[in-house]
């Protein structure tokens, strides 16, 4: 809420702005506090975490989810759901492996193709959800089925082919030889670029229109927002983010038919942890991305605590409910 929700206070005094910043930080700041607590706690358990190398590795690991969360944010804030991103990520990984087939010269054309597919799937989701008026929950649920089916139909049940080394490098490698931090991973650079772009986008007309649409569709329409176009664009951005996340994840994690399994829920959870209200109109993209970082930090913390893989789900569930309950309690208190 820090950046997006600021009313167009043209020429507002610095004091007022400062106060507004403070109050907005109070309302969505929970996630940053939680993130900080987790980071500190992890560092206490494992002091190397705070060193640049391991910390960058953590960011590198988080990058796909953070990017997905940013994409999911656009859709959620406009009052919709996108349940198809997980299947889309899987589709991306399978497509990449099959089409590149180990040949480095195929990498760039395939990346372009992946982005196009991502944009196209996003557009179809948006078109059906707005122009054809199908609830987005159902549209993207159908898309999930279609993508899962289509990908495996095409690849015959299990992913085939292999990735080229220069494709993997995007998810795995980075700029080497930088003093102190040693290696700056490409995915972290991408993360920063995409994060900045998202913040700028939410500050531009598009962002304000998106929030207005999610908050009150009719009011937005009456004040001249092209509601459908804005919403379709949100889905397109979500599709694109899934494509990018797919590229990173394929390089980082390798080819698997389960690459994107459940990521749609993780991305939505990250947004909600960051204070995005399902139903639209409230929340900030930075907080959503911080939510994704928190979720990844939570996984790291659970591993360090030595909690067995099975109970990890249970604790994740409890913490998510608790965090959201706490956030809504704060919200009620603020009102």
């Amino acid at each position, binding site marked *: 809420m820090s950046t997006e929700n600021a009313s167009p206070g043209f020429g507002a005094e610095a004091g007022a702005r400062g106060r507004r910043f403070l109050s907005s930080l109070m309302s969505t700041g929970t996630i940053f506090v939680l993130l900080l607590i987790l980071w500190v706690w992890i560092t206490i358990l494992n002091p190397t975490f705070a060193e640049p190398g391991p910390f960058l590795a953590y960011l590198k690991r988080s990058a796909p989810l953070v990017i997905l969360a940013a994409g999911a944010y656009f859709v959620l804030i406009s009052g919709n759901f996108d349940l198809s991103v997980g299947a889309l990520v899987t589709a991306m990984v399978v497509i990449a492996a099959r089409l590149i087939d180990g040949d480095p010269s195929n990498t760039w054309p395939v990346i372009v193709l992946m982005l196009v597919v991502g944009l196209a799937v996003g557009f179809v989701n948006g078109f059906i959800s707005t122009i054809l008026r199908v609830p987005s929950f159902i549209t993207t*649920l159908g898309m999930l089925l279609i993508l899962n089916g289509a990908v495996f139909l095409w690849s015959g049940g299990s992913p085939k082919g292999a990735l080229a080394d220069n494709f993997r490098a995007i998810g795995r490698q980075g700029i080497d030889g930088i003093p102190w931090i040693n290696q700056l991973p490409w995915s972290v650079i991408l993360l920063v670029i995409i994060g900045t772009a998202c913040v700028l986008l939410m500050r531009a007309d598009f962002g304000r229109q998106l929030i207005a649409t999610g908050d009150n569709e009719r009011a937005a329409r009456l004040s001249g927002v092209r509601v459908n176009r804005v919403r379709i664009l949100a889905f397109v951005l979500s599709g694109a983010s899934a494509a990018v996340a797919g590229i990173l994840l394929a390089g980082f994690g390798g080819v698997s038919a389960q690459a994107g399994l459940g990521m749609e829920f993780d991305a939505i959870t990250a947004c909600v942890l960051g204070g995005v209200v399902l139903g639209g109109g409230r929340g900030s993209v930075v907080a959503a991305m911080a939510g994704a970082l928190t979720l990844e930090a939570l996984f790291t913390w659970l591993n360090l605590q030595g909690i067995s893989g099975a*109970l990890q789900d249970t604790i994740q569930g409890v913490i998510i409910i608790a965090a959201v309950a706490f956030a809504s309690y704060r919200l009620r208190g603020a009102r």
Partner: protein
Amino acid sequence: MTVVDPPEQSSGTAAVQGPSRFAAWRVGILASPAAPVYGALIGIFVIAWIVVTIKGGTFLTVPNIVNMLQRSVALGIVSAGQTMVILLGSLDLSVAWLISLASLVTATTMDGQESNVLPAILLVLALGVGFGLVNGLIITKLRVNAFIATLGTALIIQGIIQYQWNGPAGNVPTSFSQDLGYTRFGVIPMSFFLLVAVVVVIFFLLRSTRFGYRIYAVGGSEDVSKLSGLRTHRTIIGAHIVCSLTAVITGIFLAARLKAGTPTVGPDGGYDLESIAAVVLGGTALMGGRGGVVGTVGGVAILAVLDNAFNQLEFNAFLKDVVRGIIIIAAVAVYARRQEKQA
């Protein structure tokens, strides 16, 4: 459609006399939101029949009908419960894992002993009430969005299951398994009566009880209901308890079918998203307040007919998913068009 006029009700039927009574009845049927669902069902049924016949198969054989009914039972029961919470404007993503948990608890408690059947069923039903209560309390008292709340409880149940079991467990006594899972009367399987019973109970709850009217009211607008003096929290919690109960009943049925509890029987069947798809396919608005369990039954039947036709045509399993996805989207698009015209 508000509190006073649940949709399937053909309003004023009793008051009209003579020939106009028939007309009013007909208008009532056609105007109900369930009408396009059954229209679509008949359409898909006929198309499936024709296609299967052209390909040299026979669509309406006894094993086929049994198969269709049998497949409808599990999804139908849980979808009936899901209808309740969706009518409220809520939803329940935890049903799939709850089904798994119920099947495991059923099978391990019965442990092959017939004397344990009743205690096991009671225990599992209590489990359903418990989880429904937890879901409802998290949503109402902690004010967590239903999507996140039930996703969270789903994760919690998933963790418990994976911690406790790592494969099929327990043993359902043969007699119980035969009775519930396999007995048939003519073409109608015993389990189908279970589905009918659940649907009738929920239909009655929604149409003829104060609780049901309150569900429509809260689904229409929670704020307005609260301001009109409804205890909305109780209604929401009650609906979630009913929904979880249907999930555990499905779990008991699946345990009887498989003779054992299975950790992945729920998520493998995709009962969480599939039940929501069936409800929406049945014409119930995802935002709540409009629809009913009759439409849901139609939605489940559509999915079952499709499934069966695909099997007859020996469709590729993956292509099946693609076509199913397209049909779900297309059907809901058609409903949306229709509603727009009415408005």
